[in-house]
């Protein structure tokens, strides 16, 4: 890496380190997540917290009423959203809304689409392994969070696997996040790790590149996936089925960010 690239990378990591939790996810959104994480979340308290964020409320209703969830009737208020979705799905939806919120920057739209695609594939892979699907979805959704929340023009030119590893480690150490999710994300960029969660995320990451297509792909190279397929005991045909199985759902979901 050239001295110039090293300097820019170090500066980017340093600016990431300086971010506080509130710049990553608003204090109110953080309070919503904390309420959801309680052993017995309080629906009324959640409704009150969500109601104080008009943009989040609107986005939740928009997503909830999209074909992505396929409810046969219109969902008209937040309380209904909470009851119909359940707490785990609500958490996924809030983070989906946070990630989609970054797509206002046109240059980030490709990264957001890649994240959403990875999330859907990862959810399916987790389900196939008997792991919690919602964790798989969140792992895929947030694997590019350092880029989404701290994007700088020209970042693509110096974005390397090592830089993404360091950035993820810095970011997730700041966030009170389930360890298995943050570990899988950090280890995605650590080539030697082969646990099930990391393998699922790596497969999903690579298959998202395939589904994005040449025009939209923000990453243009595939990793060799022999080890990951073996770790999950997954046949190539099964991975192809999963990849193309989520295509319609993906297309419905990314329409919401336009």
């Amino acid at each position, binding site marked *: 890496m050239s001295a110039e690239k090293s300097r820019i990378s170090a500066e980017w990591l340093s600016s990431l380190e300086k971010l506080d939790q509130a710049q990553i996810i608003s204090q109110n959104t953080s309070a919503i997540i904390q309420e959801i994480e309680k052993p017995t979340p309080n629906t009324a308290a959640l409704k009150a917290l969500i109601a104080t964020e008009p943009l989040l409320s609107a986005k939740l209703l928009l997503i909830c009423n999209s074909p992505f969830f396929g409810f046969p009737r219109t969902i008209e208020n937040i309380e209904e959203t909470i009851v119909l979705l359940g707490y785990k799905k609500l958490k996924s939806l809030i983070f989906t809304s946070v990630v989609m919120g970054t797509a206002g920057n046109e240059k980030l739209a490709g990264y957001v689409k890649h994240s959403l695609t990875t999330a859907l594939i990862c959810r399916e892979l987790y389900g196939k392994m008997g792991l919690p699907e919602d964790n798989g979805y969140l792992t895929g959704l947030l694997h590019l969070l350092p880029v989404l929340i701290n994007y700088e023009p020209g970042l693509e030119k110096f974005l390397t696997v090592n830089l993404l590893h360091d950035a993820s480690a810095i970011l997730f150490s700041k966030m009170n996040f389930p360890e298995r999710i943050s570990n899988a994300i950090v280890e995605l960029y650590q080539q030697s790790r082969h646990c099930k969660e990391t393998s699922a995320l790596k497969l999903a990451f690579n298959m998202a590149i395939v589904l994005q297509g040449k025009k939209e792909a923000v990453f243009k190279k595939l990793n060799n996936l022999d080890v990951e397929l073996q770790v999950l005991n997954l046949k190539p045909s099964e991975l192809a*089925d999963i990849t193309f199985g989520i295509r319609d759902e993906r297309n419905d979901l990314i*329409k919401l960010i336009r």
Partner: protein
Amino acid sequence: MKIDISKAEGMTTREAVVSASGATLLPAGIALTGAVIRALTKQNIQQVEVNEANAPDNSANLDEQRKFIETLFEPHASKLMRELKECLLKKVV
């Protein structure tokens, strides 16, 4: 173009789909997946306005997607990766 909902899978809505009572069930520009069609059928929707031009996957796009997959897999010669490439190519239809 208005078509029978049973033939609309893979297309996108040109106009909002509205129920008999006037409620918007689906906005314009949404892909009609199997799940969406099932949900609309339950609401007694029999026909939908779709975009012909948005019918999925024209042949040029399919060729481009196949080429992209071939390019992505070019550096990978292992048996599993070759098999994965073939499986993915079969899905591009």
